[in-house]
């Protein structure tokens, strides 16, 4: 029964926060905070309890399951399950939720209760997405997180918020419908061939599909996930939504909503349509590389600080896409680490922009400069997360990007080599950002208060996790492995007999068995 509660706590907490808003503006903040801390305690307890079992091979694919019929007539059930992968993403969701509440503490002054209602409902939807294993339920949560976020942008956003909110809504809604088509198509094909009409993930796995049908259904899922990640050229909603959203909204967008796309690919897209996914992989990898380079180049060109960071997200998530479609242990682990690292570091950068905007009431780079002298603490935080963003070894993003590229190299040398240019471009935009904001002459003569205790706490917590993930990512890798092993093993079984995705990689591996023991090979049998 713990899993429904993990979703429900946030759901109920949101309502409570709304009601508490009638008592005064402080109440919803504290209610949300307490709810999130309870939620965190639950997650940490689960992690601690199951950590020892993660590596046991006897353990099944799920750490915890919850399955209740919901609408049995059409095969819909309330099926939640958790493995190592979803556990990590839940922890990230919670942490960024707490940061979102903290960063909104003084920034949100209107309809505070309603704001926190939306904030917690977004989290609740995201948590649901990470746990749902019934495709109908998954779609339900997928849409559920959309609506509160729409309102968050439209009601508490900046100047151009209505435009951005509508754009965001149309992109995600339209692409979500394509996924719905994919889900329904899969449902009927499975039903017709087996006589069992169900949305249950475990049962839908391995549905025999003609290649062309599989490709179309897969593309439906791909578009929905690709919009969220976002994959170039489906990204234009993101800079607007990020820029116009209130800080907490940007943090949730960058930290969580972008991750559900990547999560969906790992959990649903590739396992449900392995052959189609692998035949599509070259295209996806090219799109990933395009995202890395295009996002980085455009980030450099921006004059709005928040927009700049939004474009860096596109660049970082390009590595994730690349890693997922390389589909070997190194690349997948790398993708997971980037998902976490990007959530932390980019989330932190959005918080930083929010704090700066609160002080100087603009996000224009042209009006910044020389702010290190007046805010050294803020500058230090900015430098730290800019360095994380450019992939400095010792910080979290590096571990992820390096693993992804190492894995991609085994599949496609050229892809890895071109993607590595992203390292250089990331340096260009990150240092350019630091220069424009904190260094150079203080032209406008800013005299600003440095970070206060609340802000310092946020930065310190995020810095801590970015650093730990950078120098000792092992607990996270071990946890992620639990989830990744299962999808990989499953996909390997499905692909057996299918033509190998890339023959050069296969040759390299057989030459060097010591380099890649069978466990790291996605084509081997368990």
């Amino acid at each position, binding site marked *: 029964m713990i899993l429904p509660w993990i979703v429900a706590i946030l759901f109920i907490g949101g309502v409570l926060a709304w009601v508490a808003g009638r008592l005064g503006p402080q109440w919803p903040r504290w209610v949300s905070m307490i709810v999130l801390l309870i939620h965190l305690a639950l997650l940490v307890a689960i992690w601690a309890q199951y950590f020892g079992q993660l590596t046991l091979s006897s353990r099944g694919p799920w750490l915890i399951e919850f399955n209740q019929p919901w609408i049995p007539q059409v095969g819909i059930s309330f099926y939640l399950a958790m493995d190592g992968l979803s556990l990590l993403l839940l922890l990230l969701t919670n942490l960024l939720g707490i940061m979102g509440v903290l960063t909104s503490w003084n920034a949100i002054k209107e309809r505070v209760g309603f704001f926190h209602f939306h904030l917690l409902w977004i989290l609740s939807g995201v948590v649901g997405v990470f746990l749902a294993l019934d495709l109908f339920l998954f779609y339900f949560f997928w849409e559920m997180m959309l609506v509160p976020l729409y309102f968050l942008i439209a009601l508490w956003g900046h100047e151009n918020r209505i435009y951005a909110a509508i754009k965001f809504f149309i992109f995600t809604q339209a692409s979500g419908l394509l996924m719905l088509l994919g889900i329904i198509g899969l449902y009927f094909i499975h039903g017709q061939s087996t006589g069992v009409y169900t949305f249950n993930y475990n049962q839908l796995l391995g549905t025999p599909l003609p290649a062309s049908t599989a490709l179309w259904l897969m593309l439906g899922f791909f578009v929905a996930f690709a919009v969220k990640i976002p994959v170039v050229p489906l990204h234009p909603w993101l800079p607007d939504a990020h820029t116009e959203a209130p800080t907490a909204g940007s943090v949730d967008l960058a930290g969580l909503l972008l991750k559900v796309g990547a999560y969906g690919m790992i959990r649903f897209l590739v396992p449900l349509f392995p052959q189609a996914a692998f035949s599509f992989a070259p295209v996806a990898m090219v799109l990933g590389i395009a995202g890395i380079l295009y996002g980085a180049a455009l980030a450099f060109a921006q004059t709005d600080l928040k927009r700049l960071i939004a474009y860096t997200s596109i660049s970082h998530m390009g590595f994730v896409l690349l890693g997922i479609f390389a589909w070997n242990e190194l690349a997948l682990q790398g993708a997971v680490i980037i998902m976490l690292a990007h959530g932390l570091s980019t989330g932190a950068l959005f918080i930083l922009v929010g704090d700066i905007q609160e002080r100087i009431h603009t996000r224009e780079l042209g009006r910044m400069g020389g702010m290190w002298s007046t805010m050294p*603490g803020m500058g230090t935080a900015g430098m730290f997360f800019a360095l994380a963003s450019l992939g400095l070894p010792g910080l979290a993003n590096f571990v992820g990007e390096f693993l992804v590229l190492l894995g991609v*190299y085994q599949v496609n040398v050229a892809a*890895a080599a071109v993607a590595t*240019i992203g390292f250089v471009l990331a340096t260009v935009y990150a240092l350019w950002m630091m*220069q424009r904001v904190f*260094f150079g002459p203080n032209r406008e003569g800013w005299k600003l208060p440095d970070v206060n205790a609340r802000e310092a706490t946020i930065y310190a917590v995020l810095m801590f996790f970015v650093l730990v993930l950078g120098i000792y990512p092992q607990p996270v890798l071990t946890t992620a492995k639990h989830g990744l092993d299962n999808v990989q093993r499953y996909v390997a079984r499905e692909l057996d007999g299918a033509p190998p995705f890339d023959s050069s990689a296969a040759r390299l591996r057989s030459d060097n068995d010591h380099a890649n023991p069978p466990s790291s090979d996605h084509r081997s049998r368990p």
Partner: protein
Amino acid sequence: MLQLLWLVPALPFAGFVLLALSGRRLPDRWVPFIGVGSVGLSLLAAVLVATSFLAAPPPGYAYSQTLWTWMSVGSFTPGITLYLDALSLVMVVVVTFVGFFIHLYSAEFMAGGEGYGRFFAYMNLFVGSMLTLVLASNLLLLYLGWEGVGLCSYLLIGFWYQDSYNGYAARKAFVVTRVGDAALAIGLFLIFNSLGTLEIQDLMRRAAQQWAPGSALALSAAALLLVGALGKSAQLPLQTWLPDAMAGPTPVSALIHAATMVTAGVYLIARTNVLFALAPAVQLAVAVIGAVTLLLAGFSALTQWDIKRVLAYSTISQIGYMFLALGVGAWTAAIFHFMTHAFFKSLLFLAAGVVIMSLDEEHDMFKMGGLRRSLPLAFWTFLVGAASLSALPLVTAGGYSKESILYQAWAGQAGSPWLWAVGIAGAFLTGMYSFRMVFLTFFGEMKQQPSKKPSIDIGIPLVVLAALSIAGGYIDLPRTLGNLPILSSFLQNTLPPTVIAQPAIDTELVLGVIAGVVPLIGIYFAYLLFFQRRPAYADGPTRVARGGPLYRLWFAGWGFDWLYDRLIVRPFVWAARADKDDVIDSVYDGITRLNVVFNNLLSGTESGRVRWYAAGIALGAVVVIAIGVFA
């Protein structure tokens, strides 16, 4: 005592953390205790480790210490593991030793300025990163140190952040070296993918077993590592960042040039020497790049008016000698020259710093002059440094190390008279530009009175480094002069021995004499031109504008900046800015507009005029009937 090894890099890191966490709350007078103290303790630890290593060498002449496993994914299990052998021992001792004296100097030199604590935090991080780099047991940890020194160079070059030019120079250093780093990263992918490990000792063993000499894999691996080394060591064609790196405070330049950063590339190649031996074409490229770089940089050094820029070009040139040595397989000579270079180059920077400080931040040598009497300590130490840089025979450390390189460039396994000739030409240039500095700065008429005198904290490092710039050479005496190669034989526990094609003592003697005399000729030319001022050649910086095209080309560092600016920087910036509003977004905007247009068209039909509606109904009916009849 070997177990103390982890303290060597950990102490500077601890100093960094302490200084960074305390921020501005720490009073300035406490800063040096942490900042200098941490590196001092690190030096102490290094000395203890070195003595116990020498007293009782561990089995296999190497000691390794695993702190923890960094990450473990499948068979990819790089550890945070330190590895001490003869090569890393020499590096560690030199880095901590020179680093400590630069820190001591900085305690006085940087005092009173803004960001005193920040300065030492960065400096400690710099030393810590460099020590991680040289002690790393696997290439991934080496890469961490590698990027760490790149970061610190960025932070320190841009230390005076309010000047936008400093920020530009800092970014340039980081971005240009990161181009090399990207190549190095690809090299790591390649090595792991085909050899299955990033452990340096293991991968060299496996490479020797699995890769045929000259095979494509060996060539690409070595070439990628080489590009990485070119970036960090400021060799052609990635040398452009180093002259601009002079924007940082002078002790930073000393640290970058002597102890950390630019020598990283030399270390990397020496460390992975097996890979280069398996790729003879790449190793030849190392030698050729080194030779060309040392010559080009020598010419550029000859034309600069900024004393620090002369030193910067001289570093590029001297690292070129080290690359030349690596390329001809003179592994130990390269490390020997690294060591003597660390002494005299840090000395030159620190002495130049005294001059610059006492003339109120004056960098222009043509505005200096006659400082011999008023700044005697700076003069004598600078003179020693310049003599060692010019490789004066017998009496200077630089003389021994450069002589060793030049001899092996001729007689070594991959040596050739051509490489030797370039090296000799470089030696002539070195003598000339070194003493151009000496004559312009310390001789002639005095143009500006020094306002400050150095204190004892500054004096001690100068004297110690000057002593080593002379005596440091006696640690490795060639066959022709006592035949006592202590350093070389120690290093050959790790590095492959130098193979001499025709070990004739006469050749060595003749070559030694030539290598000894040529710098003197260079110095004599400098004497004619800049002391006696024979031609009206050295009037001042105005001369550069009026000077011939070749002179201007040299002054501008052979136009590499210009070329890169036109070829890469401007097109990128132009393209990025042109697409600032994202052309892809306009596609969707187009769809939106199309919708609006159709909406207007269709709304237009709702005109409220019955005649039109009736006509529409009639027309529609006709069309439907037509379809029904004809289809």
